[in-house]
């Protein structure tokens, strides 16, 4: 599965190329755990999908830099550019809809 854990040292590199889903989560956030499971399901379905998870509790400076005020926040990047975002848990189909919209463009 293409789920990678990011930190302040590698986050920017991990979102730089291709289509990437960045999941900003909190260590003790229950909805974050729910969304994490949804992402794991999608990753099991699409193994070449790039998913980057960033723990905002451990990396507050990155969270601040990217304007994260609540978790989970989901950013969708295409070649380093933010193309879509969502605050709160996303259900699988809306995530797939965003993937369909940007992954192959």
């Amino acid at each position, binding site marked *: *599965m293409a789920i990678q854990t990011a930190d302040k040292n590698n986050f920017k590199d991990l979102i730089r190329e291709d289509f990437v889903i960045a999941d900003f989560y909190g260590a003790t956030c229950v909805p974050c755990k729910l969304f994490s*499971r949804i992402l*794991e*399901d999608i*990753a*099991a*379905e*699409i*193994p*070449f999908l790039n998913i980057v998870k960033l723990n905002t509790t451990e990396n507050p400076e990155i969270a601040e830099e990217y304007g994260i005020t609540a978790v989970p926040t989901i950013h969708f990047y295409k070649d380093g550019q933010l193309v879509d975002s969502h605050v709160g848990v996303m259900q699988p189909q809306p995530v*797939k809809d965003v*993937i*369909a919209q940007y*992954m*192959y*463009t």
Partner: protein
Amino acid sequence: MKSRVLQIKDYREVDITPLLKPFVPDEAALETELRRLTNPYVRWETGETASAGDQVVCRLVSDCPRFNKEKVRFVAGSGMFHKELEALVIGMTVGEAREADLSEGRVSLTLTGVMNRVVPELSDEMVEKLGLEGVDTVADYRAYLLAQQKDSAFQDALYEPQKQLMAEVIAGSEFVLCKEDWAVVVNRELDRCRTLCRQEGMVLEEMTPEQFRGRIPVKSYHELVAMLQYDGWDSLCRYLLGCWYAQTDGFQAGEADYEAFIADYAKTWHVSVENAREANPYETFIFNEYAGHTYTVLKKYIREFY
């Protein structure tokens, strides 16, 4: 406190079964959760024929730039690349070519590679690796998930029967309720609100409806006072009932519980321990613990019927 319970209504005399919604297992959710266990064990094996769910690599030739690509990879049937082309590729073998007339133009698709998705059967070994105590087999795990579902449904179904049972127990019990105790309860809660607001840089008595929004479900200080005064009697009754139940079931709340609560509060709300103590004095904590114990006792009784 001078207030006390004279006679308590036995909650077991209250028939709460008509108030409880029956539990209906969500089989679809159960199956989804069981299938999820196989996610880490999914294998991708080089294959010859494409089926739904397989990774495919194709060469596309078209006048439309989006579909004129030497190499494109997608999951057949996922709907994430192009529904018609994904459907077209299902059943094709490597090297085979097909054509499609899309609204975007004519596309020639050649299948150049397939990775078949292989999902293993759910096994006891997979369950064992979860490391859940007493959950060693698929059957155990199913039962575990079902119990979780039932617990969750119970929490959802609890509010109304608990509210009604509480109302009946309070109405059916006999209390001596002293006005000064009621005033203590009301003022304690008011002080707590005042402290919390001050810690946020506001003055409770001067707060605007906008400032109350999302914090306390009232629009003005006077509404808040009225609400606390109204709730004060029942809070006092719940506290007295909680003390009564504690005498028989051994429930206790003390300094150690308070310290644990303060530490947890400070961590949860990202405040200092000093602020946590200021907002939650020991006396308020103890009062709320015993009042809350009444809820716990009634909840346990309701659970027997679920």
